């Protein structure tokens, strides 16, 4: 029983789009650092979930050539595929079944269901998950975590059905101890009032997180329940960037690690979120030592997958190195796993 390491290629999307690394380069890199693979077929596999034969042949060649195991595929059920209507339940079930079959074909044992996946499609798809040996694991992500309606509904099914084929992927962005600096800097560059940034930082200093103080689902400062931001915050708003920053700030949570206690037996996989990792391997907002100490104490086994997201706060022309961030985080996690001093 131990924690294992993988890398989500989400981390390397900038390298991919700017053609600095091919899919093969990524496999090669992962093999070098003895990490396994998390993938997003919708990102790097053409015509997914119906890839052409030549695409599948190339995938098979990479799997044969490199010592890298496919662990988890991040999938999306496009419920708003059409502008004029939501997908009917039956259509959404079929889409999920296509994804299960593809994951199986590619060798993945887990599919990550994106937050808000309709709970009513889970049980009808479960026989396919069993038949194709693919676990359906709902993502628990900041702004859409354990108190979210869809996440709760999924967990109710998961507890009731208690199948080894239903579980969770937890994104460690719910354990932020401060607001990610790279995100703040991005918004400051786009005209964020520094006083608003200070207000959000103050929420963390008080031990809370923006979601608890501001509420979720805020668009333009108001959510569907008519809830609005506190007046002392809106008084600081000078442009729409300020409201936008506050809305995005709710995508990080400052939950205690023990929030996982009742869920941990169902947690199949972690997204080890990173925003900015320094040379010593320390993530700017998330304490990985705290997380690994907890998981080791609980004897949890599974993969923690590096998921670098600092890339999305780059401005045009700015170079970000997802690969460097991945290396730093992986080497730090390796030390945590081996129990060496960090």
């Amino acid at each position, binding site marked *: 029983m131990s924690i294992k390491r993988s890398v989500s290629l989400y981390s390397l999307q900038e390298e991919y789009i700017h*053609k600095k690394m091919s899919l093969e380069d990524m496999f090669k890199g992962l093999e070098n650092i003895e990490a396994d693979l998390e993938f*997003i077929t919708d990102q790097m596999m053409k015509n*997914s979930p119906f890839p052409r034969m030549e695409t599948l042949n190339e995938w098979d060649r990479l799997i044969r050539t490199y010592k890298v195991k496919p662990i988890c595929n991040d999938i999306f059920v496009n419920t708003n*595929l*059409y502008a004029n209507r939501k997908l009917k339940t039956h259509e959404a079930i079929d889409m999920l079944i296509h994804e299960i079959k593809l994951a199986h074909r590619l060798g993945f044992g887990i599919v990550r269901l994106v937050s808000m996946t309709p709970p009513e499609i889970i049980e009808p798809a479960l026989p396919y998950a069993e038949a194709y040996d693919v676990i359906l694991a709902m993502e628990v992500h900041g702004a859409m975590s354990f108190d979210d309606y869809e996440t709760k509904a999924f967990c109710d099914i998961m507890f009731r059905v208690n199948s080894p084929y239903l579980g969770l992927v937890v994104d460690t962005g719910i354990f932020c101890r401060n607001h990610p600096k790279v995100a703040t800097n991005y918004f400051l560059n786009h005209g964020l009032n520094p006083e608003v940034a200070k207000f959000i930082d103050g929420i963390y200093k008080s031990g809370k997180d923006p979601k608890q103080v501001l509420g979720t689902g805020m668009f333009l400062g108001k959510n569907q329940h008519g809830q609005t931001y506190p007046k002392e915050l809106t008084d600081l708003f000078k442009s729409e960037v300020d409201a936008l920053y506050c809305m995005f700030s709710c995508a990080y949570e400052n939950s205690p690690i023990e929030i996982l206690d009742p869920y941990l037996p169902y947690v199949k996989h972690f997204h080890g979120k990173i925003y900015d990792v320094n040379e010593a391997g320390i993530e700017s907002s998330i304490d990985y030592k705290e997380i690994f100490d907890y998981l080791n104490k609980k004897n949890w086994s599974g993969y923690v997958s590096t998921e670098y997201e600092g890339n999305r706060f780059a401005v045009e022309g700015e170079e970000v190195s997802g690969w460097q961030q991945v290396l730093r985080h992986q080497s730090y996690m390796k030390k945590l796993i081996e129990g060496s001093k960090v």
Partner: protein
Amino acid sequence: MFERYIFRKDSCKNVVKASETVGFEVKTYVSYYRSVPLSMIHKIEITVDGVKSKPEDILFTPDQKEWFTFEEMKTAALYKWEYGEEATIFVKQPGGLSKGEHQVKLEIAIRTPYVPVPFGGAVTRDIVI
């Protein structure tokens, strides 16, 4: 967030067909981190010097193989705009953009299942024809 993907630099130019300038084009990546079926593209708008192009004058290709009108894209649920592929947006305008400087704005919005409102962004570039 994904503005840096929208409206590739130096991609705006007039399009000449059979020695006639029939319009202009711009190139762009998808304003998201994954591929989407064309039916999930919620909005494509081009504004030149403050004047918005008519939707019916816009043609879109995600791969330089097939061209779609915006109406056609609405039902293209199996045809994908791949992450990392430059799409071309063509605007029909006899004579194209006139010689000189122009301010061209491209706005894209994508629907995605876990975000309640379509999202994307707008990028404006000063270009010279």
